[in-house]
């Protein structure tokens, strides 16, 4: 089965989803990413979905769950690059993205992760205001 590559960049992990994932592939990414976080002691995760032209409820839930799992493991995550049409559709569909932090692009996502790294105590308190 085709896999989504997970790259290590310093203390962070970068996942760039570039193919239209089928359901098992999305589930495998969840397993691979959580293993990799523990294995390399990652301090944060950036998930780039700018190439995804659709996110349905299954993929949306997978992204939200993966974000929560990464945070529980101590590696805050940011989902970056959601296309505007995808954002509109996800909200109308009614998917609950609670627990998932997002940023417009990789630069902003990286800035959020670096700030988290600098202020680990403020991490929880700041989350609601991103």
């Amino acid at each position, binding site marked *: 089965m085709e896999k989504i590559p997970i790259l290590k960049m310093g203390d962070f992990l970068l996942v760039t989803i570039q193919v*239209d994932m*089928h359901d098992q592939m999305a589930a495998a990414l969840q397993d691979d990413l959580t293993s990799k976080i523990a294995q390399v002691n990652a301090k944060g995760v950036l998930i780039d979905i700018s190439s995804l032209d659709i996110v349905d409820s299954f993929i949306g839930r997978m992204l939200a769950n993966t974000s929560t799992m990464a945070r529980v493991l101590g590696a805050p995550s940011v989902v970056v690059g959601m296309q505007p049409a995808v954002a*509109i559709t996800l909200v*109308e569909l009614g*998917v609950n993205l609670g627990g998932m932090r997002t940023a417009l692009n990789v630069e902003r996502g990286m800035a959020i992760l670096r700030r988290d790294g600098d202020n680990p105590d403020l991490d929880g308190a700041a989350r609601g205001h991103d």
Partner: protein
Amino acid sequence: MVTTETTSVAAASDIVSVRHAVRRRAVEIHLSLVDQTKIVTAASELARNMLVYAGGGQVTLEVLQDGVRQGLRAHFADTGPGIPDLDLALRDGFTTGSGMGLGLGGAKRLVNEFDIESTPGMDTRVTITRWK
């Protein structure tokens, strides 16, 4: 009816094929990017429903021409267990599976026309249409 195209759904990878087929037709009739995304997403939800609840089914796409107006219609037909209570099944958050219960209600919100017929023990047919 201008064009029809049928895709079988029997595995998770077929949901991706359905998304691509719907996207191709939506682009062909020049739906806006947001409308393309909405009907592709609705089709993805409905195709997954067929797979999860009925073990699979058939998706037929139709390009419609109504005067100067064009539209894309997708029919989802399965011969699964059927849905005993359609009102309940359309309600957000209701599910007999392990998902979020957004498939039917969510898909309905993403399209202009939505029809569902089901005979318990026989079949379920869902039709969605997005007009340009």
